[in-house]
């Protein structure tokens, strides 16, 4: 571990009015904002903390969802990509891909807590719904590594296809779905035995696997194939494929990556990479309702806990777009670090 920026950071949930006066923010624009300015912020929904990993800068940008502004930038390990919170929201876990480990920070203070073993080149990961263990895709080693986040021990390594990436967990915690980018499969893994149950061939370069909240379906995006495959979680049969057509955008540029599905199961949001759009999909028909223009090379997505806002990481334009989920409109773009990659939102 190196370069942890030891800024004292007030707990924003409790001392929000003072925090700006501390003057620790990297963003000059944020400095000197008053409580009044904070109160008139137009963002719908509650006040949450949004964490964005900046792959090129080795930093995490922290955004206040009520202000829709970057309020802090923290140095982390090398090439931070996947980012999640522990079940109790105390810890922020970051895949530091070029450090070949997972780094744990206190989510409120951003103080470094510890480093977890991860296997080589961790990219994306998912926690068991019970809060432990952590399942990590090792893109460089055709493995999923299972790590106990309390004892920091590697519990198992599961052999999967070439370049494992996407990690989806069923809501009941029984089934893990991993995608392998060069093998082009979604591997269904029994979390009780760590044995592979099934392997479903999808389109080229699958990036993300996401279960619906009811656990009935798994949605798998294929970046090069340009589709999202919807799989029945029980039978592992393919129920359908979402296809994308954007007038005036070259078909090759439509490269689905991030997938988020609303808790009520009615709408799905898919980030389309260099097409610079997020597709809004009616889950009943698998048809695209709308394409929302966001920043460049949009990859990962995260809802606020109330699902009123959706944040997108736009890699090549170094910003985050904020989507008003109800109005289906992009309401703000927020400058972050270079090559923003992952995003997660804390309920505080």
């Amino acid at each position: 571990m190196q370069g942890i920026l030891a800024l004292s950071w007030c707990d924003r949930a409790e001392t929000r009015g003072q925090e700006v006066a501390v003057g620790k923010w990297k963003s000059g624009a944020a400095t000197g904002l008053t409580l009044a300015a904070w109160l008139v912020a137009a963002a719908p929904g509650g006040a949450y903390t949004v964490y964005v990993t900046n792959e090129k800068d080795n930093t995490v940008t922290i955004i206040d969802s009520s202000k829709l502004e970057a309020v802090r930038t923290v140095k982390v390990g090398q090439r931070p990509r996947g980012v999640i919170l522990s079940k109790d929201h105390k810890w922020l876990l970051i895949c530091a891909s070029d450090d070949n480990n997972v780094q744990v920070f206190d989510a409120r203070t951003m103080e470094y807590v510890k480093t977890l073993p991860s296997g080589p080149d961790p990219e994306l990961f998912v926690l068991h719904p019970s809060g432990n263990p952590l399942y990590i895709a090792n893109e460089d080693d055709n493995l999923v590594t299972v790590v106990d986040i309390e004892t920091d021990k590697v519990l198992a390594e599961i052999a999967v296809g070439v370049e494992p990436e996407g990690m989806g967990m069923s809501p009941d915690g029984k089934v893990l779905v991993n995608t392998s980018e060069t093998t082009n499969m979604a591997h269904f893994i029994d979390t009780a035995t760590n044995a592979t149950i099934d392997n479903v061939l999808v389109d080229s370069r699958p990036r993300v696997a996401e279960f619906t909240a009811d656990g009935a379906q798994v949605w798998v995006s294929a970046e090069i194939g340009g589709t999202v495959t919807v799989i029945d979680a029980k039978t592992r049969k393919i129920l359908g494929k979402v296809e994308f057509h954007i007038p005036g955008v070259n078909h090759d540029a439509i490269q689905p990556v991030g997938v988020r599905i609303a808790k009520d199961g009615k709408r799905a949001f898919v980030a389309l990479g260099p097409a610079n759009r997020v597709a809004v999909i009616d889950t009943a028909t698998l048809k695209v309702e709308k394409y929302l223009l966001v920043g460049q090379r949009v990859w990962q997505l995260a809802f606020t806990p109330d699902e009123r806002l959706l944040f997108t990481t736009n890699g090549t334009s170094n910003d985050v777009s904020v989507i008003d989920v109800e109005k289906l409109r992009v309401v703000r773009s927020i400058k972050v670090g270079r090559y923003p990659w992952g995003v997660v939102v804390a309920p505080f």
Partner: protein
Amino acid sequence: MGENANRRRCRGPACGKARRASLVSAAVAAQLTLAPIALGQQQGSTGRIPAAPSDPVKQTAIVLARELRDPSPPLSLLDFPPQDDGVAGARLAVNDNNTTGRFLKQEFTLEVVQSGAASELVSEVAKRVDGGAGFVVADTSAETVLALADALQGREALVINAGSGDDRLRGRDCRANVLHTAPSRAMLADGLAQYLVWKQWRRWVLVRGTGPADEAFAEALRRAAKRFGAKIVEERAFKVEAGSRRADGGHEQIQQQIPSFTQNAPAHDVLLVADEGGQFGEYFPYRTWDPRPVAGTQGLVPTSWHPALEQWGATQFQNRFRRLASRTMRPLDYDIWVAVRSIGEAASRAKSAAPKDLIAYLKSTDFDLAAFKGRKLTYRPWDGQLRQPILVATAKLPVTVSPQPGFLHQFSELDTLGIDKPETECRAFSP
């Protein structure tokens, strides 16, 4: 950067005619059959294969045909190719195919057949095809690609040309049983030209060697200039005086020779070299009379792959290769990797090991391959050429990737590179 530039087989100044003769007798190389990755070896590893136990593993046999050629040694000690140039790419692709194949009960084997004599190479490859191999990846001269294709005509076998950029193989001499993963000279020239035009470096002086490959690349550059609105303001032929590769001394004379050779050229933005054999092009950067960038076969070059490419997930791919081969990946490794992975991809999609099914799938519009170029790669239905972005690079880093922004196409922007459907002279693929 055609077949002669990066694809040498000799490994040092000692390489010569005697080497060719000795290799003729040692025609058949090591069998590189790679078993599927053993499961359960790692602690805690439990990647159980779910397929029904009654399903037999289906085998797909791939032959890599290497023609050992004997070109002049390169100017730079850095440019001697490794002995396993291309072979390492094939090995990595077979590993990748087998990692995928173990989930589908498919297994891929690779046999390298190499010879300095084309006729012997063709007959040895034909024996493998008689033995059931359905796929021949060719790293050979253009003539030998044709000899292989014609020898295998009528059999259920496909040749994938990964070694020759010769446009006639995609044009008047195309064959229905040949696909091409190596970019054609026209694709390379177009990829470079688009970037030069994007830079507004539209006035070119072209210095070409006197060999047929140099003339072919020069012709591709002339075509590219016409297509994209550049102008070759003057051409000069550079005659290489045959001699030893080095003497004790050298820079003194080169430092005089290149400035005087490039003196009195019309106003130009960039100097292009067409030197596929790598015999003089490296002498031009920093030595020209006018201070102009050098591009073409040396200097800023168009290429299918670069050892420092890290975009589009290429980092993991490069790491995987380096672990396997203990060196960086070269364009020939990539072109052969794409060929072998194409076969694996077809097998997993067609769910078959029968060459007939796989060949049909490879040639169908359903086929696409993810190959670390940021978009899907497909084969052109009119000549069997792989559509792919072309990197434009210096020795250390990629500079850009063509097609460039603004070069539009009715169907695929990738078809702004190389010979497009309306202009193809290939008839073998016509329905």
